[in-house]
């Protein structure tokens, strides 16, 4: 069994490969040296197929496709681009932030999320991309997302595109400026899915009601087998939702230690057990430094759907380690003892091969890590 970790960074892409049950790893790369790789993902439906979001910084966005495990890359003939605006603010894609393979029954379908926030779809394996008009041109779209200049300093992002394994028509997306939205008709129509989610950066409504949208989800995951089980790490806490039982998120982050808090970016879920998740809380106090609290890195794991959490830090520096872990920078493999992988903004790749109990440094001195994914192949 071969394990490959795909690492996207601010300055190119690398892979780490192990052919001996995750004991030894060799690093390969770079690919696209100098380019911003926001997301580097493999296609679970087609062995060897990989897609990479490549941004040059100044030359606009693009997507590259490899069909041979990353050896050779071909640029998309038609990268994601907004249609000409007949009126209002003309929109231009700054970078492709997120890539998601489509449903298993549609091996040529891919989705992409961009900054400024837009949803795109390819039906030819990533070569040509079109807007998902039901989302990008939704009558309430501007209200949901705000103006393109209203977002975070490096741009508001559409992320966490989830395709329900049980129903290809059921899609969810997160907008870092706007909230979570859901479609049951393959993207033709959408509704907000933000009940129960705090939005304490806005003034409370005078009538005591909740905001329906405008939230700031950071990362959302759907369990691959029990797809009703959703989790999401938000700007305002950590949440779980059993979609079969309703549409109101529960704030499970209240069960994290108060001195740690429940602010962070990444979240991953166990490939078989929907009750097990891992998060990496970061400091959301004061100036929002977004580093691990007190400079003491730790992953927190729950085995009971977020009712209780364990602090996991064996192998990490014990102090003065001010890590930031971005939202695409945690991943899990599907081994019996699940491997958990974590990339930091200071270019270190860490892994645990005992479900988070202990951690090993696999690579250091890489550029700022933007995405981490692991692929297992025969």
């Amino acid at each position: 069994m071969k394990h490959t970790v795909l690492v996207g960074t601010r300055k190119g892409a690398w892979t780490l490969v192990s052919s001996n049950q995750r004991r030894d790893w060799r690093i390969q790369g770079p690919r696209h040296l100098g380019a911003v790789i926001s997301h580097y993902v493999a296609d679970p439906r087609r062995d060897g197929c990989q897609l990479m979001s490549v941004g040059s910084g100044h030359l606009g966005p693009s997507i590259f496709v490899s069909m041979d495990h990353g050896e050779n890359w071909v640029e998309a003939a038609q990268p994601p681009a907004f249609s000409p605006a007949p009126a209002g603010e003309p929109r231009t894609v700054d970078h492709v932030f997120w890539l998601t393979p489509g449903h298993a029954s549609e091996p040529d379908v891919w989705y992409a999320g961009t900054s400024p926030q837009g949803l795109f779809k390819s039906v030819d394996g990533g070569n040509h991309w079109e807007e998902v008009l039901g989302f990008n041109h939704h009558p309430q779209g501007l209200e949901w997302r705000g103006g393109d200049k209203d977002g975070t300093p490096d741009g508001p992002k559409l992320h966490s595109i989830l395709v329900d394994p049980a129903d290809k028509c059921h899609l969810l997306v997160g907008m870092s400026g706007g909230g979570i939205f859901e479609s049951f008709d393959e993207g033709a129509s959408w509704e907000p899915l933000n009940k129960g989610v705090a939005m304490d950066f806005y003034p409370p409504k005078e009538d005591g009601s909740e905001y329906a949208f405008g939230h700031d989800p950071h990362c959302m995951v759907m369990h691959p087998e029990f797809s009703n089980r959703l989790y999401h790490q938000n700007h305002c806490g950590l949440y779980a939702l059993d979609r079969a039982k309703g549409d109101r998120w529960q704030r499970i982050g209240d069960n994290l230690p108060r001195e740690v808090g429940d602010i962070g970016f990444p979240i991953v879920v166990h490939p078989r057990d929907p009750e097990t998740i891992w998060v990496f809380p970061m400091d959301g106090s004061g100036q929002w430094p977004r580093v691990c609290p007190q400079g003491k890195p730790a992953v927190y794991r729950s085995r009971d759907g977020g009712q209780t959490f364990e602090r996991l830090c064996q192998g990490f520096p014990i102090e003065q380690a001010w890590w930031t872990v971005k939202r695409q920078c945690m991943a899990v493999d599907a081994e019996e003892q699940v491997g958990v992988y974590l990339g930091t903004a200071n270019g270190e790749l860490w892994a645990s091969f005992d479900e988070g109990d202990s951690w090993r440094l696999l690579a250091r001195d890489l550029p700022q890590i933007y995405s981490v994914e692991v692929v297992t192949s025969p």
Partner: protein
Amino acid sequence: MIRVVLPSQLDDYTGGLRELALDLSAPDDRALVLNDVIDELERRYRGVRFRVVDEQGAIRRHIALFVGQTMVRTLQAPLATDDRVQIVGALSGG
């Protein structure tokens, strides 16, 4: 002939070519403009246009286009058949 000078950022598209001469003449119904050069580059090196011009038809923010020594911000800038066109890509940022 229009002399075109290209930046290193486009090497992946042009195979590292930094300079070329284009034998372009004005169409019958209008004068030659800068957009004709971009179109010809796209015809020769697919993908170049989207690196220089965004989907709304605007020159990308960190790209500068010069006709002679004058920076222009419109693809409709008129050209003479012996002009020198230079595409400059910013290398700002860390």
